[in-house]
């Protein structure tokens, strides 16, 4: 049996699954100390089911914590960036294409130094350790210890990034350093952006993952635990602390995989309403549609291969301003159950307005676990002006309809699956939807998606096509990726090759090509 957990900004969901059967599920508020919320959720599903803890094969945790931190510009550690490549790249310095507010929060502390490589491995300019040392001292004197290091063509040769990391560590002991070569692929700005965001998020990641571990320890769960990555596969806890940026968009992936699983539909639009954001994605043949081009996270370009989702700042915890009318993007997040009016607080949230408007029970015989009918004290919002309530409901449906429309590929109406804890915000029909489906267990689709997540293996190396034919090289790469997926715990029978990419390296002897292959498979049942 597996436990899937989803830690959102507002709610922590847990689900216990035996194969494809949901044995028990729960939704509890996310707590400031995440481990308390997780512990509570885990305890609930364990007690409800009465199963023996030893029968748990694994705990899969998905979290939108890190994406939310960037979107909301919260809990970000000011981070410096050192880029090696002078005199190249001067006209497009680090963070050049970031939104101003995010650049300000992160510090905009960017430094250019000599070094970097040409495509063929030559040095662009001589690497100067003293220059890097002087920059490291400046960064230290500015009081920063989070640093991202990028170097031109580091996916081909990472030496300068590695040497610079050593120098920075000697100047700033214990520095939190992300090398761009560890994160992404060719495409300097996008790879560097991801590396900077990774360092920004590491403190938060360490606190968060330690919290997960503490929660499991407290409940004496000894099964291994995994964190969901953006491609829907799993990584182990230590890896997640080092590379929180790889969890970006794992929430949408999990909720869409969960929505497909719950609804039985393979082609639909999924609207996942959380506490802080609503993510809209498209299911094609049961998997999220993948973005074709660069993906923005909080307004920053990255080159991860990610589900093509569109996020709006709308959720159950969204703050409501009445004059002029504004819904979100600021949210009370996990403090919903303290701050919202219906829970005795003094902040007007989207949830309050929906409760005041009278909650319609979920359709399709959906259950109401932690959902619709059990939301706080309706009398606390009975004083709200009916006109305001109608205006807010209208605005929310307008926001969702615009976002759904944006993700559609044609004007033909398509089924819309609504999942997530904030699903009560959807109070009417969505223009352009053939039907609105709120499946059983809709509030915990994320956790179900996490629980059914797969494991992956990658092969990323340079092949010389002088010695092998292209087909032989591809077969070899696919074989290596599949072997790694099996070693990571995948059932060999279930393995699929999901991504193949070739990048030729011009002018290298023997027609060298970098081949990247990703294989994924189901976690083998123990």
């Amino acid at each position: 049996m597996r436990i899937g957990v989803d830690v959102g900004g507002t709610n922590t969901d847990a689900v216990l699954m035996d194969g494809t059967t949901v044995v028990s599920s729960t939704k509890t508020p996310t707590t400031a100390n995440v481990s308390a919320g997780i512990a509570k959720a885990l305890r609930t599903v364990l007690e409800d089911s009465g199963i023996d803890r030893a029968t748990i094969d694994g705990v899969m945790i998905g979290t939108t914590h890190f994406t939310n931190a960037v979107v909301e510009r919260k809990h970000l550690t000011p981070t410096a960036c050192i880029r090696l490549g002078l005199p190249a790249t001067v006209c497009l310095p680090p963070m050049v294409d970031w939104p101003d507010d995010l650049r300000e929060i992160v510090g905009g502390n960017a430094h250019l130094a000599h070094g970097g490589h040409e495509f063929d491995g030559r040095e662009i300019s001589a690497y100067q350790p003293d220059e890097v040392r002087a920059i490291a001292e400046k960064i230290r004197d500015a009081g920063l210890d989070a640093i991202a290091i990028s170097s031109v063509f580091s996916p081909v040769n990472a030496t300068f990034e590695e040497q610079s990391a050593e120098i920075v560590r000697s100047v700033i002991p214990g520095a939190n350093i992300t090398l761009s070569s560890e994160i992404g692929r060719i495409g300097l700005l996008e790879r560097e952006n991801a590396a900077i965001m990774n360092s920004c998020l590491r403190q938060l990641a360490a606190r968060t993952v330690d919290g997960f571990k503490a929660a499991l320890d407290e409940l004496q769960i000894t099964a291994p635990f995994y964190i969901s990555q953006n491609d829907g596969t799993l990584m182990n806890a230590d890896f997640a602390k080092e590379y929180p940026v790889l969890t970006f968009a794992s929430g949408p992936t999990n909720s869409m995989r969960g929505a497909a699983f719950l609804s039985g539909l393979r082609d639909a639009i999924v609207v996942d309403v959380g506490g802080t954001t609503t993510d809209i994605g498209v299911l094609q043949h049961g998997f999220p549609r993948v973005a074709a081009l660069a993906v923005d996270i909080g307004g920053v370009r990255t080159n991860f291969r990610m589900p093509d989702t569109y996020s709006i700042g709308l959720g159950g915890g969204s703050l409501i301003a009445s004059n002029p009318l504004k819904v979100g993007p600021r949210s009370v997040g996990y403090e919903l159950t303290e701050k919202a009016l219906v829970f005795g607080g003094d902040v007007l949230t989207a949830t309050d307005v929906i409760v005041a408007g009278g909650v319609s029970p979920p359709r399709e015989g959906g259950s109401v676990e932690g959902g619709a009918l059990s939301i706080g004290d309706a009398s606390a919002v009975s004083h709200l002006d009916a006109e305001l309530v109608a205006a807010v409901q209208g605005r929310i449906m307008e926001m969702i309809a615009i976002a759904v429309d944006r993700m559609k590929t044609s004007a033909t109406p398509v089924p819309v699956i609504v999942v997530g804890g904030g699903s009560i915000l959807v109070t009417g029909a969505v223009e352009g939807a053939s039907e609105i489906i709120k499946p059983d267990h809709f509030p915990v689709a994320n956790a179900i998606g996490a629980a059914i997540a797969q494991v992956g293996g990658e092969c990323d190396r340079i092949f010389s096509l002088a010695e092998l034919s292209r087909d032989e090289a591809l077969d070899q790469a696919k074989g290596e990726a599949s072997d790694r997926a099996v070693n990571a715990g995948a059932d060999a029978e279930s393995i699929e090759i999901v991504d193949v990419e070739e990048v030729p390296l011009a002018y290298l002897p023997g027609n060298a090509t970098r081949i990247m292959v990703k294989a994924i498979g189901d976690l083998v049942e123990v």
Partner: protein
Amino acid sequence: MLRQVTLEDIRPIAIGAGILGTGGGGNPYLGGLHLASVIREKGPQAIIDPFDLADDALCCVVGSIGAPTVSIEKLPEGTEMMRAMRELEAHIGRRFDAVAIAEIGGANSMQPLIGGLQAGIPTVDSDSMGRAFPEIQMSSFLFDTSAKAAPLAMVDVADNAALIPAAVSDVWAEKMARNIAVSMGARAGLAGTIMTGAQVKAAGVHYTLSLAHHLGSRVIEAQERKADVPAVVADALDGEVIFCGKITDVDRRVSKGFARGGVRFESYSGADVLEIEFQNEFLIAYINGEIVATVPDLICIVTEEEGEPVTTEVLRYGTRVAVIAAPAPAQLKSGVALDVVGPRAFGYDVDFRPLPGGVIGRSPQRFTTEEKEDTQRSQRELQGNHANPL
């Protein structure tokens, strides 16, 4: 037509130029970011109508020369175009009055705007291709004219500069320049093809900066109203959507400095197959084995929903695209031109099969007043399964 390029014009030009890149020419996004910072510093860049140039005005073209995969990684220093022009001016002992566009397709749409603004001279609303091509001699400024690619000057990100004072042919100029570009890290700024105003007027593919801007503006507008963006692109270029489907295989090789290869698409029903041969740009398209478009006609690939250009370096398995074929400008279709930019010039043993019509290189009234989208769309529906996204 455009009289100046402001911050607001960058995005439409980048989108239009990306589509006109026919898969090559590099992504104008980075050049656009760079141009924005130069405009913020110096103000808008002036654009001059080619027919407003004095006959004896001195012009040249500028552009970045190198490999597309390098351009997204080894970003420029920023003053390459201006420094290349200054090297060339020092050689000939005269200042340029205006800078023409070598290649409107792709990143080289931005370089003459950046270089002109930095050098304090206007950019001419004419280029030499109306699209993207991989080599210097593939330029209408050089077909059957007295202009020559050399003398030309090249600079890299550092203080390395090279001058080619003379070449026995434009192909020789290309070969030498290519080798210099490789030694400069597969990316260099180049200024060359010195011309008078009269030569620009006689040989240019005119108003293509305005066309890129118009195309990009229509794409943005179509995205906003959820229209069929590929159909709008086809309409703006007087072309047709010839295929909708997803990428099922990409075969890349690099030889002689170019990313060559083939890409295969399948329609959603799986019944039809489109194959495209590329050498930096998309050159020949086959549907179910039959040739449907040939260079120099334009073969443009855009994402199916957003209509964003898909370049050869971002071709990936699974991407859903629409493929548009559009007629080349008349300047590329003469016998002399086809010897340089026809299918045989790229090593394909097939004849050029011109698509009818064409708007590229025509007066701006031709593309700003006509709205033929509805007829385009119905034509596309009549075509049946090739263009049917379902």
